[in-house]
């Protein structure tokens, strides 16, 4: 048998230098064509994605401010300033608190809503639509509705709470409660989206698994949930956590419409600070430095997502 097998080195020897040159020329031509075809996409990517990103990073090392004709290189000055900026610490911690409340809140409530709606025999579509409504509505418009609802004098929420003996206040204007109220609005907004993701995940769990568990002796809803539903939903849960975390990091519209970062910076979050520095105070270079910090957070989340979702939480 051995003498009719063509081993790679044997193949090599049968090639003359001329054929090899022809082959490499053909290879080069093919590669050239590939690069040419990819060029428009690469160009657009550089212009629209990498270019602005690079510009932001470069700006963060300068003293540029919007409208100025010139700029000076300042090295790490902006970052130095950041370390001494109390509002920066405040906005970082507020953002983390916001993410830390909205992610678990909208995850658990979204999962709960999905489980409850899936267990219904009738009206599934109706409840699904109801919970999904806030996702489809523009948050700016909904924020205005929330502002009405929170108004101390005629808002439904303070008025209802007043009936229960709480002071009739606009909770959005209280230092202690403004951020929690924003978190509730954030949960209200992402709940429907997470619920839909969980429902898709639930419908992907084969019924026979529950039947097998039943015959194996597991009969309570508690056992069913922990033995099958929860582990089978793990990939969806991971996805929900990452997506909600990224979206919560970007919280801006509710802050902008409802509190403008106040009172006393109680609701100052990273993106809103970037917005203020860049477009209210025209300190573009400082805003750029804050943006770089923000991008680092998003980058970390994206890496976690890539690592876990694509490698670990898959059963097949």
């Amino acid at each position: 048998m051995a003498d009719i097998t063509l081993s790679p080195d044997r193949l090599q020897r049968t090639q003359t230098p001329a054929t090899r040159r022809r082959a490499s020329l053909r290879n080069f031509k093919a590669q050239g064509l590939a690069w040419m075809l990819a060029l428009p996409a690469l160009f657009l990517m550089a212009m629209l994605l990498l270019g602005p990103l690079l510009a932001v990073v470069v700006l963060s090392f300068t003293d540029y401010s919007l409208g100025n004709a010139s700029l000076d290189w300042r090295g790490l000055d902006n970052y130095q300033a950041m370390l001494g900026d109390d509002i920066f610490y405040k906005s970082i911690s507020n953002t983390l608190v916001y993410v830390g409340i909205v992610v678990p809140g909208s995850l658990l409530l979204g999962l709960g809503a999905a489980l409850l709606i899936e267990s219904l025999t009738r009206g599934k579509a109706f409840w699904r639509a109801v919970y999904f409504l806030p996702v489809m509505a523009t948050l700016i418009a909904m924020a205005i509705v929330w502002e009405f609802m929170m108004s101390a004098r005629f808002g439904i929420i303070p008025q209802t709470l007043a009936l229960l003996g709480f002071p009739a206040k606009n909770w959005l204007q209280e230092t202690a409660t403004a951020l929690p109220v924003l978190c509730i609005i954030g949960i209200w907004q992402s709940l429907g989206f997470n619920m839909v993701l969980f429902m898709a995940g639930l419908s992907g769990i084969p019924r026979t698994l529950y039947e097998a568990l039943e015959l194996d002796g597991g009969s309570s809803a508690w056992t069913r949930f922990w033995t099958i539903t929860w582990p089978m939903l793990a990939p969806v849960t991971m996805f929900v956590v990452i997506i909600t975390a990224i979206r919560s990091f970007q919280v801006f519209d509710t802050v902008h419409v409802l509190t403008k970062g106040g009172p006393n910076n109680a609701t100052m979050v990273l993106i809103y600070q970037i917005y203020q520095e860049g477009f209210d105070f025209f300190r573009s270079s400082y805003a750029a430095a804050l943006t770089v910090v923000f991008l680092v957070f998003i980058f970390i989340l994206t890496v976690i997502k890539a690592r876990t979702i694509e490698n670990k939480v898959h059963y097949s």
Partner: protein
Amino acid sequence: MAEVQIRNVSKRFGTTTVLENASLTISKGEFVSLIGPSGCGKSTLLRIISGLEVQDTGQIVIGDRTVDDLRPSARNLAMVFQSYALYPHLNVASNIAMPLRMQRLNGFQRLPVIGRFLPGSATANDGIARQVRDAAEMLDISHLLERKPGQLSGGQRQRVAVGRALVRDPAAFLLDEPLSNLDAKLRVHMRTEIAQLHRRLKATFIYVTHDQVEAMTMSDRIAVMMDGDIIQVGTPDEVYDQPVDIRVAEFIGSPKINVVPVDIEAARGMAVLAGAASGVVTDPSAVSLGIRPEAITVSSSSGLAAGIVEHAENLGSEEYVQVRLDALPEIVITARAGHGTGWTRRIGSAAHVSFDGNRALAFDSAGRRVACRAYAPRHVGGKAVANG
């Protein structure tokens, strides 16, 4: 191990009746196959026994207890699903351990991490692990214990599903077409393994299949189902040789039984086949004869009925010859010919078929089996006289 009784069970889904008054008793330690064409209600009956489906009327009795008021989890039955239904997120060892964990650990002891440190769970877990190892050993999957179901072949998954069923000591094993997802060769192999397993465990097995070879080779008894009815229960030989109904005769046996229409001669009660006296005396109500391929002889020179060889298949050990009858052109008779008879080279040529009257089965117009025997002339003083 227990006896399982199905008493007058009926079930309908909406307006379609799936089971109609089905009754069957499976003795302790017996291997019974439920067999029938697709959609006849085999899975439904099995699911009713397990409790996953609730019957409209009738009872299921396991051992000496009526279990209709018990949840599936309380009936102590083990089921192997057609899709295996292994837990995809658990490895093979945990899959097999599941019924034992459910049985011996409480909700808190089953919790991940913490559960292991609760009182009593260490000893229970040791016992479970030992039993899982024993079951794996028995099924020859010890080397796979750490794998997830997704990393197993079809045959290995099937074994894990069987392992999960046999770790505990169930009242009965229910298997719903467990081999239908395997390739032909593996199917034959697993068939043997399951039959051996049954012999070793001496447990009650209820085995659903639509493959009559599986049913014939593995079962103590076969229950043939048609349109929601159990129409015959018997040993493989009984069902094969003495079918009560033409549908059973046609369903069991491969190649299929030959069915030919006959007229009954009034004088002797002789069945007339394609104009020729067949040599079989039947009940006057008979309208057709069923003859198995192995009871038919095909010859190039002489026989009961003439025809043309339309097709022949050489299986090596034997040949199957298909002859289209001259007198009944819509009938093709399949006959079994011996090894090396060379019919494949004679396709298109003339042939004659005849059959062994002792092996013929007669059926009436409703498909019910009626009396039938070979015509044996009574010898009275050296003269042949018709009897009957």
